[in-house]
């Protein structure tokens, strides 16, 4: 096999190479140091170009009445026009003083109310074997009001990477770093099973007397993988030799498999849930779960859902942990 062309390398990095063609490419990479070096180089190009484009974000409208603007659009679509609102929800939930205009924060309230009406029948599975310590789960209809996590200095690892992917939230983000917690510090911990959380709110107890356990598989290692999106194979998967070792716990857990939107919908019987106003970075299947993964400032938000006996249950997990009320507000934005 001759050297890999740049176009092929990018197709590889973008997850566009059919699996049948992978072995030949992997074999070549294993044998050719030049191509491995170029793969590394092109991978940096790919990542940096992506970051640069993402720097340009649609500016937030600070003047004028949001309601007036919404009225011209399709009725169901308005929360999507404010992808930033979800980020803002996080910021507010983490207990920052938002110094922006009042109208910004006020748009969150209707969104929350609307969801409550939109999905009253939603049953949410409680957790049994969730990753710990990072996972903070929110249960349906639970008016969770946990205290925001105490600000504390996150380590350097927590401030890696993301700076450019969501730079508009620079200020809250710096504080979020402070609030970011243990999960970011050790990915190895993600695969560990944890004792069941004691949370058992009354409403959930009546709706689902036997909380179905949802096993949340470990997040893929490394921020590069987090950033990459849908079907991108990690470098360590492409270059079989010298792949970083994964912890035994991580290997033992169910490995999530990337899937496409139609497949996700099919698995759930036609009712995939998404978080309004947020754009998932990938869809995965892990055992019976379909996982919709979103990128947070310092990790991921996983909306895991599964279909059992004709009913779809879901759970929302963030790593690193978010305050429960932030998660709950995000949960309120979950739409079918």
């Amino acid at each position, binding site marked *: 096999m001759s050297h890999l062309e*740049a176009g092929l390398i*990018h197709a590889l990095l973008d997850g566009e190479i059919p699996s049948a063609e992978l072995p030949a490419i992997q074999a070549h990479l294993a044998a050719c140091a030049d191509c491995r070096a170029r793969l590394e180089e092109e991978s940096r190009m790919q990542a940096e170009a992506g970051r640069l484009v*993402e720097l340009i974000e649609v500016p937030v409208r600070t003047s004028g009445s949001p309601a007036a603007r919404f009225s011209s659009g399709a009725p169901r679509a308005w929360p999507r026009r404010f992808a930033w609102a979800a980020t803002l929800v996080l910021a507010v939930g983490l207990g920052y003083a938002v110094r922006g205009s009042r109208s910004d924060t006020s748009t969150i309230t209707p969104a929350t109310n609307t969801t409550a009406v939109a999905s009253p029948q939603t049953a949410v599975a409680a957790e049994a074997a969730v990753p710990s310590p990072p996972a903070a789960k929110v249960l349906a209809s639970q008016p969770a009001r946990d205290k925001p996590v105490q600000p504390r200095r996150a380590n350097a690892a927590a401030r890696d990477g993301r700076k450019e992917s969501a730079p508009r939230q620079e200020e809250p983000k710096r504080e979020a770093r402070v609030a970011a917690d243990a999960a970011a510090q050790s990915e190895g911990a993600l695969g560990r099973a944890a004792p069941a959380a004691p949370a058992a709110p009354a409403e959930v107890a009546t709706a689902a007397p036997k909380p179905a356990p949802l096993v949340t598989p470990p997040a893929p290692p490394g921020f590069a993988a987090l950033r990459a999106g849908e079907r991108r194979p990690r470098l360590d998967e492409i270059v079989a030799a010298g792949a970083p070792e994964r912890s035994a716990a991580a290997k033992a857990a169910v490995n999530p498999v990337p899937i496409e939107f139609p497949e996700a919908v099919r698995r759930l019987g036609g009712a995939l849930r998404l978080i309004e106003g947020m754009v998932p970075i990938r869809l995965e299947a892990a055992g019976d779960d379909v996982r919709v993964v979103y990128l947070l400032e310092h990790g991921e938000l996983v909306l895991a859902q599964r279909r059992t006996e004709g009913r779809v249950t879901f759970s929302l997990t963030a790593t690193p942990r978010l305050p429960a009320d932030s998660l709950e507000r995000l949960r309120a934005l979950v739409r079918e």
Partner: protein
Amino acid sequence: MTGLIAGLFAEYHESLVRMLYRRTGDRDRAEEIAQEVFARAVVAPPRNPRPWLFAVALNLVREEGRRAARQGRRLVLYKAEQPEAAEAPDEAMDRGERIARVRSALEGLTERDREALLLKAEGFSYDEIAATLGLAPGAVGTTLSRARRRLVEAYRAGEATQHVAS
């Protein structure tokens, strides 16, 4: 029918406006074009919606560019990026500069390279990019590899100039 368009709107509007904003640098224009695209979708519901919507949008941008060029107007009007109120002034400045450099680097690309990059940033697969831009599917990887490299190199060159100047 209306439900179909409402569904398309809910699914693609935000992404479309973002792509258009990155392309034009003008949020109002981006939203107007997006509205126009969905209006056309109502008239002729697309079978392969995402490539269709984005292809129509990019065509509108190109047409507008040609019209503007004929009239001797400046092609793209950059509005000042609105820094977040919460951002510290120097950070906002820094961010604004970086965005301006990205924009200028994007402007230096060929139309096709730029469009491929912007579509990829919206999560398009190679097949979708090929369908939107009328490329051969096999050409998308090459297009993207060139576009990414040129973008990064132009951005870095802008960065170097900046440092020399300051």
